């Protein structure tokens, strides 16, 4: 217990011995963690958006009014056997028209004139389990054209493809930015602790001379690094907490109608992730910089 107390006290004193440097290091860590958090939130949001869009992806087959019901059912059964297909719905002309009317009621600038006959065809709506298979399925379904059942194949996967590209670019770019920030944060922490170590090199030398173990000498510095990390994480989390509402609503607004949900535990996970990351960076950076000084006192 005494040792733990000693280590914590020494770490706290070490932090305040050079406050400008310590605070600069803390803010650098905060900045890095904010970018880290921003990247994760964006990535999660986009993934949720892609997931939502993917579940909406469908191919629609317009059917000839004169097609025999048995042919239509046979076609439906065949499509359902494809592993990429999650379900196939038969939508009658009447259902399609009802849907259109319902939609029109909700939009002011859109009215459906009273038509004498229903111009909409019967159709098969195919929901896909995996958006990436859209192209293949659409191509194979186009072979049905001209056999008296299918009159048109409607596919429009471009939105999904664009979103997938965006997430891929963001993932790679985000990792690159993160790696750079990680490097900067490590560099700043290593330097801060190095200065602290240098300022206390006499003390370290004396500790080693009277028989202190390397760990006993190192722990205060490692805790000091973790303190920098933790304070940086707290600043970052405070900023995140203040900014989360406007950012979330902006994100939801941007993605508009999509039911984007980041999950109930997301905030907790993000907070813990940020904190753990900060502790690792701080502790690792500090142990790195204290090691070189330790090596001077005892040739191994």
């Amino acid at each position, binding site marked *: 217990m*005494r*040792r733990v107390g*000693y280590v914590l006290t020494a770490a706290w004193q070490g932090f305040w011995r050079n406050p400008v440097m310590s605070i600069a290091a803390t803010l650098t860590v905060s900045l890095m963690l904010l970018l880290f958090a921003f990247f994760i939130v964006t990535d999660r949001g986009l993934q949720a958006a892609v997931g939502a869009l993917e579940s909406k992806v469908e191919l629609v087959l317009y059917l000839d009014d004169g097609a025999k019901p048995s042919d239509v059912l046979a076609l439906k059964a065949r499509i359902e056997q494809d592993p990429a297909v999650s379900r196939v719905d038969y939508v009658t002309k009447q259902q399609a028209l009802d849907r259109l009317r319902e939609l029109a009621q909700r939009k002011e600038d859109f009215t459906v004139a009273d038509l004498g006959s229903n111009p909409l065809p019967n159709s098969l709506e195919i929901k896909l389990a995996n958006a990436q298979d859209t192209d293949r399925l659409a191509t194979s379904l186009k072979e049905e054209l001209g056999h008296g059942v299918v009159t048109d194949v409607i596919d429009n996967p471009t939105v999904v493809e664009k979103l997938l590209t965006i997430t891929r670019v963001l993932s790679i770019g985000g990792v690159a930015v993160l790696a750079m920030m990680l490097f900067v944060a490590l560099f700043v922490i290593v330097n801060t602790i190095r200065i602290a170590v240098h300022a206390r090199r*006499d*003390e370290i*030398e*004396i*500790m*080693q*001379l*009277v*028989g*202190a*173990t*390397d760990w*006993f*000498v190192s722990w205060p510095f490692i805790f000091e690094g973790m303190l920098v990390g933790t304070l940086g994480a707290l600043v970052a989390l405070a900023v995140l907490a203040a900014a989360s509402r406007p950012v979330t609503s902006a994100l939801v607004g941007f993605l508009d109608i999509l039911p984007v949900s980041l999950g109930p535990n997301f905030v907790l996970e993000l907070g813990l992730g940020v904190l753990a990351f900060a502790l690792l960076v701080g502790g690792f950076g500090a142990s790195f910089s204290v090691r070189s000084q330790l090596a001077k*006192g*005892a*040739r*191994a």
Partner: protein
Amino acid sequence: MIRLEDVSKRYPNGTAALQDVDLTIEHGDFAFLVGSSGAGKSTLIRLLIREELPTTGRVLVDGKDVVRLRRSQIPNLRRTVGVVFQDFKLLPTKTVAENVGFALLVTGHDGRTVREETDRVLALVGLTHRRGHFPRELSGGEQQRVAIARALVNGPRVLIADEPTGNLDPVTSWEIIKLLTRVQELGTTLVMATHNAEIVNALRRRVIHLDHGAVVRDEREGSYAA
């Protein structure tokens, strides 16, 4: 017991600090290391506490080959070998008692032991009344006595003093020497590097004379100069 067998030390810049040194200092002995600056006294001391490794040869302290110690065993060596320096090496931000207790604290002793042992060695060096003072409030001789107390608090088998009187006036130097002599008489092996001819000549103890890294004279009851 301290034994050096065929020890040579050559620094990376080419300086040969020690050459073929063979030396045995029995347990409880008192030995002076003399010789001009650069003769190898400090290098020899650094080998004993494993601050440096010899280029060749074996260094045995208290029966252990310090050259072969693993890094994790070095702290244990340092607890059996107390060291006193010319410049005292006290921590300016800690009190006398804290400076002494520090040596016990870093080796993981509990608070009660730290207090008791600190009081014991402070009484031995006659500084009980100064326990709450900071090093800058003490005279040079008092600071050196604090350093000796710190070297003794772990109960070392060997005490090494590297020019312990180098920064002190003659009267204070004698006080320190008397203290060190008493420590040796209580059973600790004492090795002292010094330039103080008066003290060496007065005490008539073993004298090991180094010159250009080699032992050129080793007398049981020697004097400073041949």
